[in-house]
C-alpha cells in the first residue's frame, strides 16, 4: 500500500473533526473521499500533508510511519497537495509559482525544464499566462496552476482537495480528464470532492465520509449504484 491511514482522530480545539477513519490508497490508484460540507474531507487531507496534528491513529506512506513527520519532509517523500481554494501564491508569476513546486527537489535545471514542459503540455493555458501574476488568473486557471505546481514536485501521491470547486461544468470535465491522464503516468491520486458523480466515475475506489466517520466504501461504480449514496450525494 502506498498510503495507509489507520484509525485517525483529529481535533480542532476540543471539537473532534475526524473520529477514527481508516482508508488506503494503493500504488497507481485514484481514490476519492466524498461527503458533505463538514464531513472532515479537507481536515483529512491537511492531516496527510502534516499541517494538522494527529491525536490518535497513524498515517503510513510505503510502510513508513509518517504520523509525526513535518510537512516539508513529507513533500520530499513524494506527497504533494494542491490545496482547497487553490492556495496559489497571488503575488508570484505563474512561472514563479511553478518553480516553488520544485522547492524541495532543488537541483537540475534540465530536469526542471522538462517538468515545466510536461506541465505546459497538460495545461497549455498556463504557458500563455507564464508571466502573469497568480492572483490575476481566473478560477479555472488558478486550479490548473495549483495542480501544475504540485506536479512540479514529482509526487508519488498527489492530493487534490476539491479541484472542481467553483468551476464551470465544461472545465470540471476537463480537470477530471487531466486527473486521469496524470494517473495514467503512474502518479497515485487521492481526490476529495463534493462533486460526487464525477469523482466516483474517475476513481477506482471511494470512501463516503459523514461527520468524521467512514460510513461506506467500495469501488467507484458500486458506490455510484448504491441507492443510499445516490439519495444522499448524487441528487436521487
Amino acid at each position, binding site marked *: 500500500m502506498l498510503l495507509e491511514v489507520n484509525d485517525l482522530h483529529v481535533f480542532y480545539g476540543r471539537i473532534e473533526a475526524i473520529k477514527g477513519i481508516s482508508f488506503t490508497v494503493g500504488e497507481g490508484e485514484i481514490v476519492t473521499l466524498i461527503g458533505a460540507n463538514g464531513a472532515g474531507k479537507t481536515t483529512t487531507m491537511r492531516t496527510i500533508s502534516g499541517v494538522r496534528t494527529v491525536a490518535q491513529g497513524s498515517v503510513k506512506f510505503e510502510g513508513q510511519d509518517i504520523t509525526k513527520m513535518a510537512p*516539508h519532509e513529507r513533500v520530499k517523500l513524494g506527497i504533494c497537495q494542491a490545496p482547497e481554494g487553490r*492556495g496559489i501564491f497571488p503575488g508570484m508569476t505563474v512561472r514563479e509559482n511553478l518553480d516553488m513546486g520544485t*522547492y524541495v527537489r532543488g537541483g537540475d535545471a534540465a530536469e526542471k525544464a522538462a517538468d515545466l514542459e510536461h506541465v505546459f503540455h497538460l495545461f497549455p493555458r498556463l504557458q500563455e499566462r507564464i508571466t502573469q501574476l497568480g492572483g490575476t488568473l481566473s478560477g479555472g486557471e488558478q486550479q490548473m496552476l495549483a495542480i501544475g505546481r504540485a506536479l512540479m514536485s514529482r509526487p508519488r501521491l498527489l492530493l487534490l482537495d476539491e479541484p472542481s470547486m467553483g468551476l464551470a461544468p465544461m472545465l470540471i470535465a476537463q480537470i477530471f480528464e487531466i486527473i486521469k491522464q496524470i494517473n495514467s503516468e503512474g502518479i497515485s491520486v487521492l481526490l476529495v470532492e463534493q462533486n460526487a458523480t464525477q469523482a466516483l466515475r474517475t476513481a477506482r475506489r471511494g470512501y463516503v465520509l459523514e461527520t468524521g466517520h467512514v460510513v461506506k466504501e467500495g469501488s467507484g461504480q458500486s458506490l455510484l449504484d448504491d441507492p443510499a449514496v445516490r439519495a444522499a450525494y448524487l441528487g436521487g
Partner: protein
Amino acid sequence: MSLVLNFWLRVTSLFSGFGEQFRAMNKWQRYSAYGLGVVALYLLPYWPDVPVLGQIVNTPGSQFETVLNDQVVIFVLIALGLNVVVGIAGLLDLGYVGFYAVGAYVTAILTSAHGNLPWLLALPIAVVISMLFGVILGTPTLRLRGDYLAIVTLGFGEIIRLTAKNMDWLGASRGISNIKKPPSMFGLKFGVLDAKPYFYLGLTMVFIVIFILHRLEYSRVGRAWVAIREDEDAAELMGVNTFKFKLWAFTIGAGIGGLAGVHYAGKVGFINPDNFPLQLSILFLAAVVLGGSGNMYGAILGGILVAYMPERLRNFSDKRILVFGIVLVLMMVFRPEGILPKRVGNEHKKRRAKSQEGEVAS
C-alpha cells in the same frame, strides 16, 4: 486636498520615471551612476555648504551631520533589519527596539560596565547575542500568527527595557557611561564633537547590510520568505520549512537591529533605559510601512524620511510631530503600499494593464 494628492502623484511618478530611465542605460552608465551616487552619499555632511541645495537640506536647530548619523543612519539600518521581519517574512514585530537595546547594552557591558574590550571586538559579539535573543524570542512565538505575535513582541520590547531599568548589573535607570568609541581607522578619529566619522562608518555598515540582504533575497532563503508572506499554508504544502525560515528572518532582523544598537552606543558613549522606549518600535515600524514594506529600498527611504523630517521641520517646534503625523496619515490614505511598493506590486499593475489589453484584443 487635491493639491496634496497632485503633489504626491508627481513625486511618485518622478520615482517610477527615474527607474525606467535607469533601466534603459547601459552597464557602464549604470555603474558610473551607482559610483556617483555612493560618492554623493559619503559627501552628505558637506551638502549644507552647497548654495541652493544647502538651504533645502540643512536642519535648522540641530547639527546636520549629527542628524545624519544619530537619526538617519540608525533609522535606515533598523528599517533594513525590520523590513526583513515585517516586509519580507510578513511577521509583525512591535518590539523591535528590544534588539536595538540588546546590541547597545552588550556593547556597553563589554566595553565599559563589566569588561574592557575594544569596541570593534564588542561589535560581532553584540550582533551574535542580538541574534541569539532573536532565536530565544522567535522559537516559542513564531508558532503564533498575526495579532498574537504582535502582542508577544510588544511585550518583549518592554521586558528588555524594564529589565535594564531594574537590574543594577545593567546600570538600572542610571544607565552605563564611558562606552568605548570605535578605533581610529582610515585616518578617521572617532571623537566626541565631530559626527562625520561616525556617519562614514554607519553608511558603510548600511552598504554592507544592503549587500548581504541583496544576496539573501535572491537565494533559496529569499524565495522561501516570499512564499511564506504570500501564503503560509501553501508554502508549507510546497515543502518550505516555514518555521525554520521565519526563525531565520527573525534572527537576521534581530542581528541588524543589534548592529544599529552597537553603532549608537559607540557614538553616544552613554546609554540608559529611556533611550529605548516603546515609541521607537512604533516609529521603526512606521518607517518600514511608510517607505514600502517588502522593498528594501522602500524601507531605506522610509527610514530616511521618518528620521529626517522631524529634524527638518524643527522650525515648527512643537507642531512638527503633528505635521509628521498628518503626512503619515495622508500617505496611508493615498499610497497604502508605501512610497516604493515591493517589486511584485509594481509589476502586478503593469501585467494587469497588459492582460486587460489582451482581453480587449481577444
